[in-house]
């Protein structure tokens, strides 16, 4: 009975909360180390293949015809009928950059149109919705607390 009382005293103090959770995480990380090696599945969604260093879009060149189709390996292709269109679209600026330079593929792809935009906005758009909401909520908390002090 004494042990139980002692445990509950530790548990009841929320100052120990972080330590308890950290302890649990350490145990799980040990389980993780013990469960190694884990096999890497080669058959991935949105794989990073076709890396062609001579392309102006390297490392994001995924081929395809603008306003046409590109093969994007996604989970439910039937749900996004226009998958791949975004990937191959280049704005005039990015088209200019792609034709004239090598080595700034990242900039070109980050500009609207590209595989990452495809994933973030189209096929996995709901992720982005939630993520911006998190930013919004967190910022609302911070600014509420900050403004309250100002008053």
């Amino acid at each position, binding site marked *: 009975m004494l042990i139980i009382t002692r445990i509950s005293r530790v548990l009841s103090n929320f100052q120990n909360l972080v330590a308890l959770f950290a302890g649990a995480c350490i145990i799980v990380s040990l389980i993780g180390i013990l469960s190694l090696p884990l096999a890497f599945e080669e058959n991935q969604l949105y794989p*990073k293949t076709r*890396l062609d260093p001579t392309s102006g879009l390297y*490392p*994001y060149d995924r081929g395809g015809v603008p306003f046409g189709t590109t093969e994007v390996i996604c989970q439910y292709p039937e749900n996004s009928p226009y998958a791949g269109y975004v990937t191959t679209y280049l704005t005039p600026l990015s088209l200019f950059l792609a034709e004239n330079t090598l080595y700034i*593929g*990242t900039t070109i*792809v*980050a500009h609207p149109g590209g595989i*990452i935009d495809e994933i973030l906005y189209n096929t996995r758009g709901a992720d982005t919705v939630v993520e911006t909401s998190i930013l919004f909520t967190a910022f609302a908390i911070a600014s509420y607390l900050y403004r309250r002090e100002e008053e």
Partner: protein
Amino acid sequence: MNTTFILGLAILVIGVLSVAFVRPKTYVARLINLEIPAWGLLLVMLAYDEALALMTFVAVTAISTFVIVRLMEWRDASC
């Protein structure tokens, strides 16, 4: 197995250890040490050609640093 990957992992480990067991145990030292695993992770991302994530990561790390520094400034102003 390429050099970038191994190097990144090594720096990540060094960085994590240095943040976890920081000497001298001051806020500033820990804050500076926090940059080390960030660069290690950057190398790991580089090894997998995740260029866009890498660039965003660098910028976000700087912003997080600023968030913490801002807190330290308020702290020093009030203490």
